[in-house]
């Protein structure tokens, strides 16, 4: 439990209280990496802790779509041309069917890259189940703010908390 002891946890019942605590931490110039905010619903706007929230979902969706579409088009055209069969005058790589398959490839590539982006950006799939003392309250809708103790949070930052734990 050595790692556990280095965190101070506080659980808040409303997003306003949690926001308030985060604001106090931000004013005390606590670094973002020393604070962890957890909630069971999206909190929306939070006071800045020196780092921006950002997601590359739109970009990766676009890139994934391009890659998927290119792959699908190559699959259609190259596989048809690998052994061109006589078609009675019809095209070997007709464009409309190629467009249909390419469209599905675009969608497939975009979907997969969106999911991969969410998983990577959120640090998911690591399954590091580091449980906290307030997981149950978190599940019931509480908001847990944790600060690394060595970051020396200002006194009273968690004064509105429902419960705290060293």
């Amino acid at each position, binding site marked *: 439990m050595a790692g556990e002891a280095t965190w101070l946890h506080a659980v808040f019942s409303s997003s306003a209280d949690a926001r308030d605590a985060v604001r106090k931490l931000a004013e005390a110039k606590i670094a973002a990496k020393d604070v962890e905010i957890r909630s069971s619903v999206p909190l929306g706007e939070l006071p800045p802790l020196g780092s921006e929230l950002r997601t590359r979902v739109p970009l990766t969706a676009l890139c994934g779509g391009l890659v998927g579409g290119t792959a699908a088009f190559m699959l259609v055209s190259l596989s048809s041309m690998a052994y061109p*069969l*006589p*078609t*009675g*005058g*019809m095209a070997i790589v007709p464009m409309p069917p190629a467009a249909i398959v390419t469209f599905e490839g675009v969608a497939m590539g975009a979907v997969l890259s969106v999911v991969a982006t969410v998983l990577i950006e959120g640090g998911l799939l690591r399954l590091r189940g580091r449980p906290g003392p307030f997981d149950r309250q978190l599940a019931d809708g509480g908001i847990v703010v944790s600060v690394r103790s060595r970051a020396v949070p200002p006194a009273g930052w968690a004064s509105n908390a429902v419960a705290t734990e060293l």
Partner: protein
Amino acid sequence: MTRWGMAIDTDRCTGCGACVVACHAENNIQTVGEEEARNGRAMHWMRIERHYEGVFPDVRIRFMPVLCQHCAAAPCEPVCPVYATYRNPEGLNAMVYSRCIGTRYCANNCPYSVRFFNWHGGEWPEPLQLQLNPDVAVRPAGVMEKCTFCVQRIQDVKGRARSEDRPVLDGEIRTACAQSCPAQAIVFGDLEDPTSRVAQLARSDRAERLLGDLGTNPSVIYLKGGE
């Protein structure tokens, strides 16, 4: 280039059905029995359709042998997802039985209804298995099959001609149906060779193609209109 084709003179056809029987014997086509035939599963790669002309009492029955038309722009070919049916370089619409997975899409897109699905696989009880033609595959259940223009006979003649170092002669290849037609209504040959009999018949005034307006460009030519 070669394009195998067939001319069928419906003015000569008597509807005797010899071609149907010959086709069954040549191509190992199963006979499905009464009950299955009633269920719409009779298999005749070559079948004789009847239609009536005129009003009673002045009625005339006409016969029309229908088989795979080996269309140059075959509707069945592009819809097969696994290339089990394709156009071979000599203009045959070929079936690769081992490739067929049985989607039956080709049959739905055939306006001539000449594709037959093998619903149960054939049975040739002793000693009938001895009459099977060794040159023709016996198809398993679950595949599509249809007229091949007796491709085994084409191959046979081509091989013989090659060994004798000569071209295939016109009339040398006879499909089972053409061979057995007592009225000699069926002529088989190369449509691309302008001197062949079938090409001459194709140019005749009486020549027409079945559902020609669909643009499938069949290789079977029907001759009709004389007496």
